[in-house]
């Protein structure tokens, strides 16, 4: 915000508090400007959230259930390779690393007013980008980019979700699939580990 000269007019008999005003403006000025990368992440997150919000508003269908099924089937064929159980098990283990207690991610979800759920994720090591994927966005790692909070490094995203059960996971730097080890997990049916979330409320 560019500095501007303060109005000097009296407030109908109240003298303007110039010292206090100067101190407030100095406090504003002492804050560092926002990181352009952070601003860009916020923009992308807003545009992604708006996509979810608008699809709910205008009645257009939510991501199709068969998007997730198609993605799961692809995972089975590419990763699990049922005809080579030994090989597919080893590759699945590498493709979906389960973090150890000492260095794993830590996540949290919180229902907020207006029907949105906030997903938070703390990573043990730096990442350039993190996406939230789930049955609510067709498992598309470009649909819901997460925003990194400058204050504590937590990655965060908000998604409007209707009441019911939802399944989700995280994708780090476009290639690493992660789940929250502390959140309820869906039994791995061979498609990779995912977390589950129940949103309360009338359906």
């Amino acid at each position, binding site marked *: 915000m560019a500095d501007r000269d303060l109005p000097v007019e009296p407030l109908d008999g*109240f003298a303007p*508090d110039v010292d206090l005003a100067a101190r407030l403006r100095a*406090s504003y000025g002492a*804050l560092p400007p926002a990181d352009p990368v952070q601003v860009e992440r916020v*923009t992308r997150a*807003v545009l992604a959230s*708006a996509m979810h919000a608008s699809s709910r508003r205008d009645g257009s269908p939510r991501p199709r259930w068969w998007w997730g099924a198609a993605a799961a089937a692809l995972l089975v064929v590419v990763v699990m390779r049922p005809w080579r159980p030994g090989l597919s098990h080893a590759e699945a283990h590498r493709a979906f690393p389960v973090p150890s207690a000492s260095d794993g991610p830590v996540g949290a979800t919180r229902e907020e007013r207006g029907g949105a759920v906030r997903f938070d994720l703390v990573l043990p090591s730096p990442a350039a980008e993190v996406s939230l994927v789930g049955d609510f966005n067709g498992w598309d790692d470009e649909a819901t980019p997460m925003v990194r*909070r400058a*204050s504590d490094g937590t990655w965060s995203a908000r998604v409007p979700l209707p009441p019911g059960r939802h399944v989700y996971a995280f994708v780090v730097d476009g290639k690493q699939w992660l789940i929250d080890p502390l959140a309820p997990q869906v039994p791995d049916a061979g498609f990779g580990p995912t977390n589950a979330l129940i949103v309360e409320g009338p359906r």
Partner: protein
Amino acid sequence: MTDAELVVRTRAGDPDAFGTLVSRYYDACWRFAYHMLGERADAEDVVQEALLRAYLAIGRYDERDQFRGWLFRILTNLCRNALTSRSRRTRRFVQDELALQSAPAPLPSWAPGVEDAALLRALAQLDPLQREAVLLKYAEGLEYGEMAAMTGAGESALKMRVKRGCERLRALLGRTLEDAS
């Protein structure tokens, strides 16, 4: 490119135009939200929510309005909601209302590089409407007419909030200086 031109492009579906608006106003929004809420994470959340609501409501934006004023109208409402919600969460865990009133304000998390911690602590102890009025008047440099359009309050009420807010701030900051000497 003016704000109005960027709004037109945003309505036409140009994400870069909206990105430019965000770049232009993110800092101003965040500084206000941080001084209102005193918590960096809360301020970031509220600013993002304000930008989302602005984007979703961009079709209703009137070009005769100043975009910054319109955006700040959304932001001030969200800051108020955040403070109301925060006070409700506090009350759920405190049974004794008297203890709540006499308890010192919790210390917010400070952004690095902020020198005036005493000012932020004092702001946190103001009535939220007084805090909002003082910030809009003295930090944002708005006229009372602009503040009235933004907050929906009358100019007389706003002037009184600014006066009382300043008096309380001076008392709190003066007490801090006495304690430090």
